[in-house]
């Protein structure tokens, strides 16, 4: 139990440390997302409202976390210590 709590604490700390990076990276990534949406909607009278931008930013931030989590598990899968 204690071990788990420590691991959770450590991971939370890691997640918090990642937050500014994710928030910053979210901005250019949102633009890529909007580009994808625009290309996908060519030919229709689509409207890009604030909701689409907001969703894009949210997905970008979540995506950065997803990327780091997958990277973490990939290294574990190969039986290697994570990057120090």
């Amino acid at each position: 139990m204690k071990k788990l709590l420590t691991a959770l604490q450590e991971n939370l700390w890691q997640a918090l440390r990642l937050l500014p990076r994710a928030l910053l990276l979210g901005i250019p990534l949102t633009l890529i997302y909007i580009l994808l949406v625009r290309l996908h909607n060519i030919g229709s009278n689509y409207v890009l409202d604030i909701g689409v931008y907001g969703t894009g930013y949210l997905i970008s931030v979540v995506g950065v976390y997803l990327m780091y989590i997958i990277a973490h598990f990939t290294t574990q899968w190969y039986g290697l210590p994570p990057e120090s």
Partner: protein
Amino acid sequence: MFSGCKEGMLEKLGGRLVKTGVRKAQQSVKRTFKDFSKRSDHEMPLHALTLRDEVEVIGWEPYWLLEGTETYEPAYDDHLYNLLSTLVVGYYDINPATGGVRDDSTYRLLRNSPVYQARTRLPIANENLKILIALSYGEDLSTAGYASLLDTKGKSFKNLVKNLCVLVSDSNVMADGIVVDFRSLPKGQGKRLAGFLAELHSYLDTAGGATVRDIYLCLPAQGLGTPYSGKEFFDELALAPQPTVRKFIINTWDHPYSVEAPYLSQVASAKGTRSGLDSTLAYYKRQMAETFPNPAAWLIPEFAYMGLRYVAANDTNPLLGERIRRLPLDSVMARAVADREEDDNACAEGRCKTNINGASFNAFPYTYYFENDSSLALKYRWLASQGIKGVSLYGLGYNTRDVYSKAQNEKARKVVKGSLWQVLAGQYAAVPARTTYPTIAFLLMFILAGLLMGVVIHPEVRNEIARKGAHRWSFRIVTILLVIGIFASLILTIPGQVAAGTGGLLAVFPFLRRFRSMIKR
């Protein structure tokens, strides 16, 4: 086995069952794929759509369509008001001598019609719907009549303003403004009309209370003999301290239909003439250029209703488009015969109807045109290409009137009626952007990046790549090409981003094995 069963019967039955089962399974798989790949905007019901912000779609509903006649009944209950930004209800037909309405019953109808509840009637309500009252001058087209009409000093003008203020502020009407429809105004009256509009605007503004009333003005089609609206008219309008007129509605349906361009009839001028909307639009853009920056933003062309129209012209080929199959030809023939009889009778009584060239209607074989969804879509697209953001639809209730009376062909009537709104929605509605597939593709990109990052961040792998890259250019080029390829396929193979993304993920796995071996070494 019972006696009726012959040899091989069960096998046949079994085979049939298996075949049916396989077919059913195939169908259900197909249906699942179809549902999965369905475009979300197609699933959107028309009454759930709204117009784009910058677009103005005006619908006209003259009083005779509000009360109904023998051949058709009022259709205003069925209009999709969510796809209109403005509803024009007409006509306040001025009597220039008094300033009142020529016919009192019209005034009563205008005041008490239930059409104004369009803002609140669910599910097609549109609380932002702008309601305008059309002001017209129908009967007396002489210059003298107009002179007394446009006289803003006289008693009749005061009476007109008083009546209009009562009408627009009525608790049933609650109109947002006026449409001035003096499109047959003779040449040389432009300056006086500008004065009339400015005066009317100032009265409506002060008398109507807090809301600013809008004035829309109908402009005549060019090349038809009544060009009052030259440059001096717009110069005069621009002199007013505040913008008097909000939008100009160009009359398109006076333009003749032409055999040369059946689908773009009334829009494209016939060869060597200036009879189409294209030349009228060019004319107004030229005249307004100095005083109204970006004239296209001020102009809205007005089209005739969907359905059957006829013109008397010296040609014999009825122009029916390929998608005309749902037209009930019996009704068309009945209509044609009735028209002909009516015109012949009128001529016999000495009241011959004439076309714009002065020739009598029944001097030629009649040509019937049918305005349908394909022709309207072409016309709306043409307008968009000219930078015009909107359209005015004259007589929404006319959609069904000409061919489809209530008793006839209820189904075809519904199709024709629905297709007008379909075309409008296709051109002017704000469709929410489809985001499902881009989102999945985007998330796949992160998974891809995570997998690559997981191995590439290790110093061993980086060193190995750097070492190999230093003397093996092919390795670097292949890597770069692969990355570009994955991104390009993600972005360009629309709508297959998801497939491309998944393919990208699969393509990466051999590389992961290679990286792994690098680490292990």
